[in-house]
């Protein structure tokens, strides 16, 4: 007889909570009676504790049993582990089946999911790494895009992100400190200073045509230990740069707010108008007109600004900076690298 989702939820409750399980009283009365249930559920809880609390088990859950990579119709108790190991290497073995009072026989399925970790992207992370949150003291928070160096430059390495993340949209001054995490996420000075603003591309506020190509800035990495080259979550540095964009292409990014997400390119010739702080009149905005931008389906949110945009093959194609309710926009990487005279450091 196959077990339903509902019965497995009861089983999961019994395994972890024992006699304190929140099982409907009617279900207990209809099957074993309270006294017998208390005795048997305590036994299940105690015998299960050994494998549930073993180092390799990270979580329990419910799902279709996966056999040889195929999802079957059988609902199982999922046991999530970092890595599947041979039985000989285990201190305790997860039983293949379990008898649960009021439910009956259930099957288990050990599923490998990698190490479960607290998400650190909005928090302090050392070494710093592309994909984590950071920002100028007058900016809430954005994202660390790529690690770059000057073409024909020295040993200095830089964080590439947006001007509106590292330079407060051009209101900042070279030398200004950059915090990781950003101010919004609790970053303070001097403890969380990881870099110093070096250069930003000033905006042209002209209303004649669309003169702007990038919202970009670099900050020299000063934190002891420097920066990892591998992007958070992906665990890989990009392979290189690609300039061969076309509509319909899939792109990905890792950002402070929405982590790893995918979008699809809609337009590679977009000319959006986007408001930025007016340098001559604090508190008011001025329109900045961009050309040669890449408009995508929406795959980002506030705080993802500065994210490196990659192709499916992990080549860098852009620097994410803006969006609307249903779109996301990035600067083409060749325009960014040309404006700042930089290249990837990989």
């Amino acid at each position, binding site marked *: 007889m196959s077990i339903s989702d509902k019965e497995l939820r009861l089983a999961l409750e019994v395994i972890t909570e024992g006699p304190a399980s929140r099982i409907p009283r009617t279900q207990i009365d209809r099957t074993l009676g309270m006294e017998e249930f208390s005795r048997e559920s305590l036994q299940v809880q105690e015998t299960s504790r050994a494998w549930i609390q073993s180092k390799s088990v990270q979580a329990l859950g419910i799902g279709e049993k996966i056999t040889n990579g195929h999802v079957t119709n059988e609902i199982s108790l999922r046991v999530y582990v970092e890595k599947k190991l041979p039985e000989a290497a285990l201190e305790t073995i997860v039983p293949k089946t379990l008898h649960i009072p009021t439910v009956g026989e259930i099957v288990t399925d050990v599923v490998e999911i990698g190490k479960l970790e607290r998400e650190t992207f909005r928090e302090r992370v050392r070494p710093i790494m592309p994909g984590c949150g950071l920002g100028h003291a007058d900016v809430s928070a954005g994202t660390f895009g790529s690690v770059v160096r000057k073409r024909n430059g020295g040993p200095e390495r830089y964080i590439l992100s947006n001007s509106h993340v590292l330079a407060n949209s051009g209101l900042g001054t070279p030398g200004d400190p950059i915090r990781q995490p950003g101010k919004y996420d609790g970053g303070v000075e001097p403890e969380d200073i990881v870099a110093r603003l070096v250069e930003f591309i000033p905006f042209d506020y002209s209303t004649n*045509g669309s003169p702007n190509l990038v919202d970009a800035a670099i900050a020299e990495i000063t934190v002891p230990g420097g920066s990892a080259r591998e992007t958070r979550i992906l665990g890989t540095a990009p392979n290189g740069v690609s300039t061969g964009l076309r509509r319909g292409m899939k792109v990905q990014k890792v950002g402070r707010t929405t982590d790893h997400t995918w979008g699809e390119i809609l*337009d590679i010739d*977009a*000319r959006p108008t986007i408001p930025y702080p007016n340098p001559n009149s604090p508190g008011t905005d001025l329109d900045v007109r961009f050309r040669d*931008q890449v*408009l995508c389906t929406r795959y980002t949110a*506030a705080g993802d600004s500065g994210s490196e945009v990659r192709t499916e093959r992990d080549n860098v194609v852009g620097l994410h*900076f803006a969006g609307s309710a249903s779109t996301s926009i990035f600067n083409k990487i060749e325009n960014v690298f040309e404006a700042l005279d930089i290249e990837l450091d990989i």
Partner: protein
Amino acid sequence: MADRAQAKLALDQHELSLKSRKNVVGTGILESPDGSGEAIAVYVSRKEPKADLSAGDMIPKSVELVTEGMKLEVPVRVFDVGGKFEREKL
């Protein structure tokens, strides 16, 4: 039928006029609605009923590209992006 280079030229010639219309937040280039060649994209923060738009705010179905003595009609596609474009800081 316009190719991408022609659509870009048409955009250069008509950008200012298109961007001065109500709710327009950007322009660009998309595939032509009938699938043949390229079209100018006009990105709007929201679409409004024709009745609520003045004649000057209506977006034309196509624009004329004048180049080297020849004329070409380039189609225009209105694309609702769901709001204004904004920089994505918190």
